[in-house]
């Protein structure tokens, strides 16, 4: 039986490696995503909140004081002439901008980017209080110190570092739902499994061979992504590689089985695409790949922890970004593992050769 699984696994790899185009894109796509998003959101100097400062026509003492104080509270200030600032605002790129208004200032916040703008506004206000105290010769107001850190507290990571585990997870899900599920439906449609149906090959051996092969692909993919992440953005795995491997195995088993299970509900590739998207997009959007759900309703935040992608990603991020061990993430891994087992059993039960 082990021999059968092994041969199935080796054959899957051979067949896969002969499809050069598919192999290329499997590896190129996540790397392109990482490079693309990483560069777009890098901003050059780490995770600082930025604010546009509309330059007054005649700078006064208070302006210099505010600028100095804003720098002290670690705001990234972009001084722009009024016309430039307005154009940038019009393009929707500005989250918050500071304008001169009479004796003081006014803050304009972009309603679409409230998370960044709101935080920046708080810092601007703090800077202005400091600047006023200094201008009036009053005692320096004492500030509450702020530090910027990743949740695990080890390293202040940038967006690319937040993105990388997300891409790993998203990638697993897309291999599972599209590469595994789609390929199986189309092979079944083309009758490629019919010949297997008249052999004693058990369905679970066939499925397990495929899951194992996809597992090695996804690990190879993860290695490529991590190397690129390190070279391009200096992102490093902060945790143990063994923990990372364990999390990846759980995730792969889960999403590959998910793909198999879903594929049993579709008769044709076309209907499969619709079904897969039905699962892919909600899982992707709700599971913190691109943003966190801090502002979502509480029930939704609880609900997504029961879906597989969210606990998988939180554990992956905890290990990768924060160097946390797996000890505190037993429940999350259990959720992913339960999905993996349930999906695999469902897949074996429903799998059809023809």
């Amino acid at each position, binding site marked *: 039986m082990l021999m*059968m699984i092994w*041969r199935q696994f080796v054959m899957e790899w051979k*067949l896969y490696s002969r499809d050069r185009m598919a192999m290329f894109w499997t590896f190129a796509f996540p790397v392109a995503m990482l490079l693309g998003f990483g560069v777009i959101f890098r901003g050059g100097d780490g995770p600082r909140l930025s604010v546009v400062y509309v330059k007054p026509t005649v700078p006064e003492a208070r302006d210099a004081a505010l600028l100095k104080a804003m720098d002290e509270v670690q705001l990234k200030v972009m001084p722009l002439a009024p016309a430039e600032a307005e154009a940038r605002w019009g393009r929707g790129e500005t989250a918050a901008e500071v304008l001169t208004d009479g004796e003081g200032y006014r803050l304009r916040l972009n309603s679409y980017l409230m998370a960044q703008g709101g935080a920046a506004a708080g810092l601007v206000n703090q800077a202005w209080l400091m600047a006023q105290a200094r201008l009036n010769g009053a005692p320096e107001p004492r500030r509450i110190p702020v530090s910027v850190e990743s949740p695990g507290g080890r390293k202040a990571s940038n967006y690319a570092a937040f993105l990388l585990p997300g891409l790993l997870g998203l990638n697993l899900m897309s291999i599972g739902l599209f590469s595994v599920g789609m390929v199986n439906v189309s092979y079944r449609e083309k009758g490629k499994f*019919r010949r297997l149906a008249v052999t004693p090959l058990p369905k679970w051996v066939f499925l397990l061979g495929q899951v194992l092969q996809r597992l090695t692909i996804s690990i190879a993919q993860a290695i490529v992504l991590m190397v690129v992440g390190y070279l391009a953005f200096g992102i490093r795995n902060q945790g143990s590689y063994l923990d990372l491997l364990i999390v990846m195995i759980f995730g792969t088993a889960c999403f590959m089985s998910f793909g198999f299970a879903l594929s049993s509900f579709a008769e044709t590739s076309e209907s499969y695409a619709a079904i897969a998207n039905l699962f892919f997009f909600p899982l992707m959007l709700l599971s913190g790949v691109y943003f966190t759900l801090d502002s979502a309703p509480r029930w939704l935040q609880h609900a997504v922890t029961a879906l597989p992608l969210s606990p998988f990603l939180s554990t992956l991020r905890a290990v990768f970004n924060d160097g946390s061990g797996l000890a505190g993430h037993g429940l999350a891994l259990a959720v992913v593992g339960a999905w993996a087992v349930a999906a695999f059993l469902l897949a074996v039960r429903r799998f059809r050769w023809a």
Partner: protein
Amino acid sequence: MSELALRIRGLRKAFPKVVAVAGVDLEVARGEVFGLLGPNGAGKTTTLEMIEGLTAPDAGEIEILGQSWKRDGQQIRARIGVQLQSTSLFNKITVREALDLYGTYYPKARPASELLDLVQLNDKADAYHITLSGGQQQRLALALALVNDPELVFLDEPTTGLDPQARRSLWDVVRRMKAEGRTVLLTTHYMDEAEALCDRLAIMDHGQVIASGTPASLIAQLAIPSVVELTFDGAAPDPAAFATRLGEAVEQRSDLWEIPTRDPKGLLPRILETAETAGVPYQQVHIRRATLEDVFLHQTGRSLRD
């Protein structure tokens, strides 16, 4: 152990729009080559796929090598070899890899080299499946059906779409299977193939067995063991007037007339004479023995290829 390799009772299968198999009984003895003969759509493939465990029957009993699908599915699969009507493998698997891979699915497997010899695919051993010709793919399918050294082999239209030379070489492989003591159940719509290969056969039409027996006994059942044929250059004319004159039944085919008879020697001079006086523009005259084609025609009123 049962002397029968296969016993089928009352097998039925209906699809939403058509009753494919309407009550089929079959018995195949161990070691014989048994043919299911019939036109396309007669229900041969559906019958075979129910026996192979690919399609669930609506009703009926199937006993294979003394076992039943309900209880002994995995054991049956290990003891039978199957060639499907079209075997679709992964495009980029090589011939040798396919044989090795399928070998691992069985408790015992014949070495790939032996199978490659048997079906003469040695020079294609390392070619991808997708690069093989139709005949080569069929031979690979045949080799795959033999990979587990099966007791019972199912071949679904093994020679359809092959050129005459490829057909002959496939026939040799089937004869070798019989010589090795295997039981073979094959479907075909070629009469010559059934006559050349099968010990016994069943003729199917509209989902039912309409006649069965050895090829010779089926032909002998016909009251008319011989057929005189008049061939024409182009389409055969209406034979009604000629038939009346001759006083015998004449059947019109696309480019020939057929006159079944028990006494070809006596009838031939009369045919020639009548044709001469009536000015029938025939090209050639043949006398042939009745074939399975005639049996089928006699049973169904239709030609096999219609």
